[in-house]
């Protein structure tokens, strides 16, 4: 049993998302603020009806609605038009399975006949008039009046879901980052521990806990104290005072029991270890926990512990479907590039979506790091080798006053044969990429090589038209003149030919000098365009 697709409209930062998912492992990467966590939160909400550990009805607040949408709505009202009131839709499409038939039907926005759950937050028609009154003064509206909204939580058969038990799939969200105080942390672990216990074990625990409390009173010393307290009757109150333990219903074992790790109470154990225990516990939870959502597994963990944890996750995944958001190229590498789901602009893109299967294979085999760089960067500049990389880095710094990575621009040195593969992935991911390339003495050959990308809005090929300046070194010389080059290199060549000969035979050293020098120099135009 697994989630095949998720469709989200207007939920927080996800104005519109349609993500198809892997059956087993989904490593979700993407820029900060792109909605990775929101995606997990939305899935968890639709599958459990819970937000921040409480029923949605209690947690319903105006900021659940996409802010752009609300603003557009208010703007439209101000213009005097009558727009549709904003609504939130989360649809979770499940792979067809005989045990999920109860949730099956075609009442979903794609009209697909499969099991699934839909959660809609929309204006309650019963409050339409109140709402109309509320929006009659658009200039005074800042947020939506959620008290006029209702929640429709239904399966694809269009039957109401009363509680999460009606969904035969259990979903656990492990998000260490949102647990701020230790009480919440232990509460959370108790919940996970509880999930891993059988009903009989739970009953036994509850019974033992109650018995333990009852026995407390029978202790001779406690009895003596209570007898002494009883003699104080009248002085403080007319009633008999005694001490006991709370055995009322709310004082159940869940409130009184604290998980320990090696006899240390859990809140006192390091955050990283806590996190790792939570994840592992959720993994241990009997097969009924089918879907596990993990927020930034690497939080608070050392490299070694992370390695161990990730190993544990991949070894114990079993038939569960796992979602992990991460910024760590290590996590990505370890779990496999094939599980990567690049999440941006509400779309989830997988490498397996690449049309050219050889490119797919190439990236599957490539160490994950370079791929991740391309994925995580806002835009990338692809260069042909280490010399070009140094020049581009420095040119960028000269232009913007900071290193490209600080702006989310990654300069990636790519083997010349691999350029087209990187470009294919850039187009798939809609990641702006500039290729900085030598013309190698033939502009027409270069144009043939990059024919597919010459008109592209995503990929720009940056090169120089002058075929006599065939590589980086003549370009640098032509742009800056012999004097500047001499002073950058700390040499005193008498003519261009001598300088070029030196530069050609000391490529790396030349580039390094240009990178480190305090002498002012200008990048060739095609590089300047790339670092714009």
């Amino acid at each position, binding site marked *: 049993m697994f989630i095949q697709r998720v469709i989200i409209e207007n939920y927080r930062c996800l104005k519109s998302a349609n993500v198809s998912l892997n059956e087993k492992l989904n490593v979700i990467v993407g820029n900060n603020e792109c909605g990775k966590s929101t995606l997990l939160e939305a899935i968890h909400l639709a599958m459990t009806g819970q937000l921040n550990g409480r029923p949605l009805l209690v947690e319903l607040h105006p900021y659940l609605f996409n802010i752009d949408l609300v603003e557009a709505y208010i703007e439209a009202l101000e213009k005097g038009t009558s727009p549709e009131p904003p609504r939130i839709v989360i649809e979770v499409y499940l792979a067809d399975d005989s045990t999920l038939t109860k949730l*099956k*039907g*075609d*009442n979903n926005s794609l009209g697909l*006949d499969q099991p699934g759950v839909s959660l809609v937050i929309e204006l309650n028609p019963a409050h339409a008039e109140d709402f109309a009154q509320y929006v009659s003064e658009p200039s005074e509206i800042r947020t939506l009046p959620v008290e006029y909204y209702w929640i429709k939580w239904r399966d*694809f*058969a*269009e039957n109401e879901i009363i509680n999460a038990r009606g969904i035969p799939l259990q979903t656990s969200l492990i998000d260490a980052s949102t647990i701020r105080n230790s009480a919440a942390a232990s509460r959370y672990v108790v919940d996970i521990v509880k999930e891993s216990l059988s009903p009989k074990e739970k009953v036994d625990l509850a019974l033992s806990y109650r018995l333990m409390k009852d026995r407390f009173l029978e202790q001779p010393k406690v009895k003596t104290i209570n007898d002494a307290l009883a003699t104080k009757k009248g002085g403080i109150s007319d009633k008999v005072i005694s001490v006991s333990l709370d055995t009322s219903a709310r004082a159940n074992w869940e409130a009184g029991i604290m998980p320990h790790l090696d006899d240390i109470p859990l809140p006192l154990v390091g955050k990283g270890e806590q996190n790792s225990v939570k994840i592992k516990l959720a993994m241990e939870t009997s097969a009924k926990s089918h879907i596990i959502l993990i927020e930034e597994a690497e939080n608070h963990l050392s490299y070694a512990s992370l390695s161990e944890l990730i190993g544990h996750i991949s070894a114990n995944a079993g038939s569960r479907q796992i979602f992990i958001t991460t910024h760590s190229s290590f996590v990505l590498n370890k779990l496999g590039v094939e599980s990567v789901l690049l999440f941006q602009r509400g779309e989830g893109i997988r490498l397996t979506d690449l049309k050219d299967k050889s490119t797919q294979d190439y990236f599957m085999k490539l160490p994950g790091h370079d791929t991740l760089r391309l994925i995580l960067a806002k835009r990338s500049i692809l260069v042909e080798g280490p010399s070009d990389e140094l020049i581009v880095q420095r040119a960028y710094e000269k232009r913007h006053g900071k290193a490209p990575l600080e702006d989310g621009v990654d300069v990636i040195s790519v083997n010349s044969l691999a350029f087209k593969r990187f470009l294919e992935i850039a187009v798939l991911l809609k990641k702006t990429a500039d290729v900085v390339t030598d013309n190698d003495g033939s502009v027409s050959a270069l144009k043939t090589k990059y024919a597919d990308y010459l008109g592209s809005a995503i990929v720009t090929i940056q090169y120089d038209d002058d075929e006599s300046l065939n590589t980086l070194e003549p370009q640098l010389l032509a742009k800056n003149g012999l004097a500047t080059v001499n002073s950058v290199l700390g040499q005193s060549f008498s003519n261009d030919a001598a300088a070029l000969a030196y530069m050609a035979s000391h490529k790396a050293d030349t580039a390094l000098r240009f990178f480190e020098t305090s002498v002012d120099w200008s990048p060739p135009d095609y590089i300047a365009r790339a670092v714009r």
Partner: protein
Amino acid sequence: MIGRLRIISPVPSASRIIISAAGGGKTTRVVDQALASDQGITALITYTRNNVREIQLKAYKRRPVIPSHVEVLSWYTFLLRELARPYRSAMHKHRIDGIHWIEGKSVPYIPATKTGAHYFVDGSRVYSDKIAKFICECDKRSGGAIMRRLKARFSHLIIDEIQDMAGYDLDLLELILRSGIPVTFVGDHRQATFSTNNAPKNKGFAGPAIIKKFEQWKKAGLVTIDYECHTHRCSQVIADLGDSFFPLEPKTISKNTEVTDHDGVFLVASADVGAYMTAYSPQTLRYSAKTKCAPYNAMNFGEAKGLTFDRVLIYPHGKAVSWLASGSLSHVEKSAAKMYVAVTRARFSVAFVFDGKKCGIQAERWAP
């Protein structure tokens, strides 16, 4: 055995109709059958919410909880949640929020082509007499999606009070049978005192005549029909009286051998009713609220269905008086089901308030 040829008779249908005599303990059997099944989910479907409650109570007598592989549903809940809603988009744009209850025929002059108005009130509530029709049509238009889902959803359907099905319900049941989902129907056409709906469709099979539909299904190889002819409730004399309304049906055998000081079928003169009430405190039954009777908290025949009393005192309606006088069944042809229900409520004694001089049935005159 190896190599020997055998002639294999056609595979008997997995679906059956069990006609169970009054007091035969059919609810108990239905519950036991559902609880015993261990493959997939069994749906236990019955007509009214009261029946649902009765079945749940029986189940709790057997087990502390109703196991998750048994779902007890009322007929309309079943129709709405499992059949009408999941693929309604093939027929209708909006969600079906609920059912609009209707006595008689809903909007008879709006043709089926106007789907919204033909089937729905306010576009959201489906008319109770047309929901089965809607489902049949919707299944057709969705390429059989409803039946495919139903088959995956339940491994077995047990439908109680089958005799109350009417109109398009019968078409729907036939559709379910043809789709290959094993169904066990339980009921007694002799107790067909009311219908799930009053659609003109299948009128010829209304009331006890529903047995003719069952016979058609049997002929088509869709079901087998079994008779459960035992009653744990009625004494043999009372069972015989009940059977007398349906002379062509198999005879009921009583398992009630308890003897009291007042067993059998009696006639009580209206002047003696008070004394009779004092002597035996029977439950009084009447055909309908229109039947004239003394104020002893009389219960209508139909209402008494499913209930058991030690003794009943029946106020016969006009036709029943003629039957009592002549013994000729032609008088009670139309009310046979209700008469059967009335008579078979009693364990020990059935008495009729009757002042006629001549009596055409086997009965003893009671005198204080």
